[in-house]
C-alpha cells in the first residue's frame, strides 16, 4: 500500500529529468529551479577562485615589502579578484540564483515567463565568464586596471584588456535578459488574488532589481564598447590628447556601476525581509514602507553615481548635487533597517541559522552604510578617497551585505531547494567563525584608511603593519568558517535528513508546497485571499 502510494506521489524537480541523463538534465532543462541551481554552482565556483585571489592579496599584505608577489602580480590579482567577484559573483548572485528559484514559486507561478530565454541567459553568463577568464591566460598577461577599467589607462595598458572588457560586455546581456524575464514574470504570472500589495518582499526586491538590470546595464555595455573602440581604432572618446574626456568614462561607468550596487543589495534586502518575520514569528513591520523604500532605492540609486568621482575634477555644482543625493539615498535604506528591527521587537525570536546570518547582515550593513555617509560627505571624502577605508566600506556593503544575505538565504531556502536538512550546530559554528574572521579582516581597513594607507598597493609603510596583520589573519579565520559552512551544506545534500515541507514555520507560498518542489511547483495554481506574512 505504502509502495503504491510512493509510486503515485508526484516526482520532485530533482527526480524529473525529462528523459535526459547526466549533465544534460541540467544544461538542457528550462525549469527555473534547475537554472537557479546552475547559476548557484557556477557562481560558487567563481567565488572559490575570487576568495583564493583575495586571500593571496591578504598574504602579500601581511608584512611590508614583497611577501609572496611583486607590484605587477598584485595589480593583476586585485583586478581579476574584482572582476570575478563583481561581474561573475555578486551582480548575478541573489537575482540569478534565488530570484530564479523563488520568484515564480512566491508569486504562485509554474515557471518564469520565458523559460528558454532564461536558459539562454545562463549560457550567455557562461560565455561571458569564459571570455573574462581567458584574459588571464592569453596575450600580454592578466589585466591590471582594477575592476573599474578606468580610462585612459584601460586603453593604454599592454595587458590583456580586450577579452576582459568583452567578457563584461557579454555578461551584461545575461543580466538584461534575466531582468526582462523577471519583470514580465511579475507582471503577467502572479496567481489570482495576488495583488501588488500582497506580493512578498523578496519578489518586490527582485522586481525593483530587474528594472535596474534592464535599464542600467546597456550603459556599461556601450561604455565598454567605447573602450574597445579606443584600444582597436584609437577613436579618442576618452583620450585628452585627441580632445576626449577621461572623466566622461567615469561618468558612464558609474552611471551603471552605482545602480549595480543596488542590483547586489536590493535582493539581499529582500531575502532578509523574508527571514526576519519567519524567525520572529511576526508580521513584517511596515510592509508598504519596505516595498516603497525598495522602489525608492532603485530609483534614487540612479542619480548618485558621482560620489565615486569626488576627487576626479568634476565641477563644484556636480559635487554638491551628488553629495546631497547620496545623503537622500540613505533614507530608504535606513527605513528598511528600522523596519527589520521593529519586526523583531516583541517577536518570538528563534536564533536559528538563517536568523543569525540575517541579524549579522543588519550589523555589517549598518557599518557599511554609515561609513558610506563618511565617504558621501565632500570634505571627508577628499581625505579618505582611494584609501583602505574605501575598501573596508565597499566590502562591508558588497560582501557583508550581499554575502551575508546570500548565505542567510541559502540556509533559509536550503531545505526547500534540496529537500534535505543540514546540521544546525555545524552551521552555527561556521557562521560564528566566519563572522569573527570577517570583522577582523575588514574592520582594520577603516583605521588604516584614516591613517592614510592607500589602496591598491602591494607595499606599505611600517606604521601600517599592525592592523594589516589582524586583517590578514582575519581572512584566514573567515575562510575557515566558509569551508565549514560549505562542507556542512555539501554533506547535507548527500546524507542530510529529509526536510519537512515547512521547517521554519514560514507563511509564504514556497512553504506550502513540497520540499523539494515538483516540476511545476503547484498541483494547481493557488488563489491568494489573505495578505502575506500573517502569523496567528
Amino acid at each position: 500500500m505504502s509502495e503504491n502510494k510512493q509510486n503515485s506521489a508526484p516526482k520532485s524537480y530533482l527526480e524529473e529529468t525529462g528523459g535526459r541523463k547526466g549533465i544534460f538534465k541540467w544544461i538542457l532543462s528550462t525549469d527555473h529551479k534547475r537554472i537557479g541551481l546552475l547559476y548557484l554552482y557556477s557562481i560558487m565556483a567563481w567565488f572559490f577562485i575570487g576568495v583564493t585571489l583575495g586571500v593571496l592579496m591578504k598574504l602579500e599584505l601581511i608584512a611590508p615589502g614583497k611577501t609572496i608577489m611583486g607590484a605587477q602580480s598584485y595589480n593583476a590579482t586585485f583586478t581579476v579578484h574584482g572582476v570575478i567577484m563583481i561581474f561573475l559573483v555578486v551582480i548575478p548572485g541573489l537575482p540569478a540564483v534565488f530570484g530564479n528559484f523563488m520568484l515564480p514559486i512566491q508569486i504562485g507561478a509554474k515557471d518564469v515567463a520565458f523559460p528558454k530565454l532564461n536558459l539562454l541567459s545562463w549560457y550567455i553568463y557562461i560565455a561571458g565568464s569564459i571570455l573574462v577568464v581567458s584574459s588571464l591566460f592569453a596575450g600580454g598577461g592578466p589585466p591590471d586596471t582594477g575592476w573599474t577599467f578606468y580610462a585612459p589607462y584601460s586603453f593604454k595598458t599592454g595587458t590583456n584588456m580586450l577579452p576582459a572588457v568583452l567578457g563584461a560586455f557579454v555578461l551584461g546581456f545575461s543580466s538584461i535578459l534575466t531582468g526582462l524575464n523577471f519583470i514580465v514574470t511579475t507582471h503577467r504570472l502572479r496567481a489570482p488574488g495576488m495583488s501588488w500589495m500582497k506580493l512578498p518582499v523578496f519578489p518586490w526586491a527582485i522586481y525593483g532589481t530587474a528594472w535596474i538590470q534592464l535599464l542600467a546595464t546597456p550603459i556599461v555595455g556601450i561604455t565598454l564598447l567605447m573602450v574597445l573602440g579606443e584600444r582597436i581604432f584609437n577613436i579618442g572618446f576618452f583620450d585628452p590628447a585627441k580632445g576626449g574626456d577621461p572623466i566622461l568614462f567615469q561618468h558612464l561607468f558609474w552611471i551603471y556601476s552605482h545602480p549595480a550596487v543596488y542590483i547586489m543589495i536590493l535582493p539581499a534586502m529582500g531575502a532578509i525581509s523574508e527571514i526576519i518575520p519567519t524567525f520572529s514569528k511576526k508580521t513584517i513591520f511596515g510592509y508598504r514602507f519596505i516595498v516603497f523604500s525598495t522602489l525608492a532605492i532603485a530609483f534614487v540609486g540612479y542619480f548618485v553615481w558621482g560620489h565615486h568621482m569626488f576627487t576626479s575634477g568634476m565641477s563644484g555644482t556636480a559635487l554638491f548635487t551628488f553629495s546631497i543625493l547620496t545623503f537622500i539615498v540613505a533614507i530608504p535604506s535606513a527605513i528598511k533597517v528600522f523596519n527589520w528591527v521593529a519586526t523583531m521587537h516583541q517577536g518570538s525570536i528563534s536564533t536559528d541559522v538563517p536568523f543569525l546570518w540575517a541579524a549579522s547582515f543588519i550589523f555589517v550593513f549598518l557599518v557599511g552604510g554609515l561609513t558610506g555617509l563618511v565617504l558621501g560627505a565632500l570634505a571627508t571624502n577628499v581625505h579618505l578617497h582611494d584609501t583602505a577605508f574605501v575598501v573596508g566600506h565597499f566590502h562591508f556593503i558588497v560582501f557583508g551585505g550581499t554575502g551575508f544575505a546570500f548565505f542567510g538565504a541559502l540556509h533559509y531556502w536550503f531545505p526547500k531547494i534540496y529537500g534535505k536538512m543540514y546540521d544546525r550546530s555545524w552551521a552555527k559554528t561556521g557562521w560564528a567563525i566566519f563572522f569573527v574572521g570577517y570583522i577582523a579582516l575588514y574592520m582594520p581597513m577603516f583605521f588604516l584608511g584614516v591613517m592614510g594607507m592607500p589602496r591598491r598597493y602591494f607595499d606599505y609603510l611600517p606604521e601600517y603593519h599592525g592592523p594589516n596583520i589582524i586583517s590578514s589573519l582575519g581572512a584566514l579565520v573567515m575562510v575557515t568558517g566558509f569551508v565549514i559552512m560549505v562542507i556542512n551544506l555539501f554533506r547535507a545534500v548527500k546524507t542530510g535528513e529529509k526536510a519537512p515541507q515547512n521547517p521554519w514555520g514560514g507563511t509564504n507560498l514556497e512553504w506550502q508546497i513540497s520540499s523539494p518542489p515538483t516540476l511545476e511547483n503547484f498541483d494547481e495554481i493557488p488563489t491568494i485571499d489573505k495578505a502575506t506574512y500573517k502569523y496567528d
Partner: protein
Amino acid sequence: MAEEKHHITSYKTYLLVLSLLIVFTLLSVAITQIELSRWAAAAALLVAGIKSTFVLMIFMHLKYDQRMFRVMVGLIVALVVVVIIITMLDFLFR
C-alpha cells in the same frame, strides 16, 4: 484577454513615417553644418529623440497599446533625461 484587438496600421502611414524619418536623418546631417558649439550634441539628441518617438509610437505600436506601456516608456525616457542633465551639471560648470 482572448478578445485583445491588434491595431493594423496602413501602408500609407508607414510610408509617411518612413519619409519623415528620412527627412529627419537628412536634417541631423544638415545641422552639423551650423556652428552650435556645445549645443551640437543637444541638437543631434533632439532630432534622434523625435525619430525614436516615431519608431516607438508607429512601428512598435506603442500608440495603439495599453496606456501602461506608454507610461513605462515615458518614465524611462524621463530617467535618461535626468541622468543627462546631472552629467551636464559637471560638463557645463567645470
